[in-house]
């Protein structure tokens, strides 16, 4: 069943490409004359609530509610690619999976998208009682370093302490909160999670000039962790989501779309590997 669903998603990639192309077309009709990062920000959406069902998420611009950005079928473990959004205030609303756009939404948050800034809109917590946190993402790391932060999304543990190698990343981190980014030396180190007598470890390799978010989640027995790539390299635009399979934002000009599409396709291959390893993450379909 899982394989069938995965195959269906692979088959949907061309549609996904079309969808993103539509995003860019809608976002800037004069794209070739405007540098990508001049005005826009980037937003990705993460479903990190194991108890909440699949949902459709809507981002409504305050000034133009007729053209929301919509992510359909967002399920636990999903992390979208970064989407290019014009600067301004947005309302975040949720509907049940495949509910009509005319049905009643649940307002969950409102936040301001600033130019050249990346955000993660994360659904956390129990259901009912789901809450949404908006995280501002770091887009660049100091040369030769990796940046890591921790978001605590475990319902079972009130406080979690997390370290990466010898570096303490989070001490007694409470649910629905996050740490600042910590600069760490790149390499392969052990991430340790400790909470109320329980210890969990995972190996995590980080390369230089990358930015990451470690999300603490509830596993079937004890804690588990997920790693999100926020940015790769020292470019101005975020490369987040690459590890999930469809990461990165795209330049707007047609020529510049090519490397982004390569990112996307490479990401699809990575996704195949990721899913093969049993990670829950997948990518929802963007509509606009």
């Amino acid at each position: 069943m899982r394989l069938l669903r995965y195959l269906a998603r692979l088959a949907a990639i061309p549609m996904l490409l079309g969808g993103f192309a539509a995003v860019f077309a809608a976002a800037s009709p004069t794209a070739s004359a405007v540098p990508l990062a001049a005005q826009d920000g980037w937003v990705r959406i993460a479903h990190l609530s194991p108890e909440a069902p699949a949902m459709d998420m809507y981002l409504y611009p305050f000034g133009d509610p007729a053209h929301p950005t919509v992510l359909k079928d967002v399920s636990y473990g999903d992390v979208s690619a970064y989407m290019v959004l014009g600067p301004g205030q947005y309302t975040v609303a949720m509907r049940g999976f495949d509910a009509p756009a005319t049905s009643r939404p649940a307002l969950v948050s409102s936040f301001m998208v600033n130019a050249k800034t990346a955000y993660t809109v994360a659904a956390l917590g129990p259901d009912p009682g789901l809450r949404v946190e908006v995280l501002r993402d770091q887009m660049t790391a100091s040369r030769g370093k990796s940046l890591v932060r921790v978001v605590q999304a475990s319902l079972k543990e009130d406080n979690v302490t997390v370290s990466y190698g010898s570096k303490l990343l989070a001490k007694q981190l409470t649910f629905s909160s996050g740490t600042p980014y910590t600069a760490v030396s790149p390499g392969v180190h052990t991430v340790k999670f400790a909470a109320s007598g329980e210890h969990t470890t995972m190996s995590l390799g980080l390369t230089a000039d990358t930015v990451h978010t470690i999300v603490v989640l509830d596993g079937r027995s004890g804690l588990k962790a997920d790693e999100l790539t926020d940015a790769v390299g020292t470019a101005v635009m975020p490369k987040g989501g690459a590890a999930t399979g469809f990461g990165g934002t795209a330049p707007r000009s047609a020529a510049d779309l090519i490397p982004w599409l390569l990112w996307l396709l490479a990401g699809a291959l990575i996704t195949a590997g990721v899913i093969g390893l049993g990670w829950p993450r997948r990518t929802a379909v963007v509509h606009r």
Partner: protein
Amino acid sequence: MTGLLGADVVATLRSADMKVVDQYAPALIASFGSGGSRIEIRAVAAGGAAAYQSALRADLQARKSAGSQLRRNPRLRFTAVDAARLAAGEVDARLLATLAALSSQFTLRVTAFSDSSPGAPLLFRGVTVASDGDGNGAAGLAAALAMVNAQETPYLPAHCAIARLGPGQPVLLIEFASPSPLGLLSTVLTADVR
């Protein structure tokens, strides 16, 4: 006064030690009476007066920005007075977010805001809206009412009802209770590097 830290709202007499009151409960929600016997209902600021004032300034800027964007929303129509209040950041953030969400499905005319900026002595901050131009006013407002009533805190209003404004004209009245929570329009966890 340290007992205040566990409370959200306090009632004081104006004759109380206002320096202490202002330190722990700087946000005036409502007042009754006059002179030394005036009773004030105040919101407690967990971080103290300085933190509250800082948050209030940030919230005002966010309301100005969001309100100005809402003025450009083609599905919402405002009077000149109300448009000016939006631009000045005088409208409650919950009303701004609610109007933005309603405009995703309805075309509305705002007939009045019944609030002013947080800190003003009012118990409720409200908006009155009417259907605008779709020829299906009552049904549209009923659907808008259902949408508003389906929300959860902090976007679930204290009161929401359809009323009549003049002969035959239905309007939707939405009211949120004071105090207005600060920071609703800028719910972003920062990306500091340590």
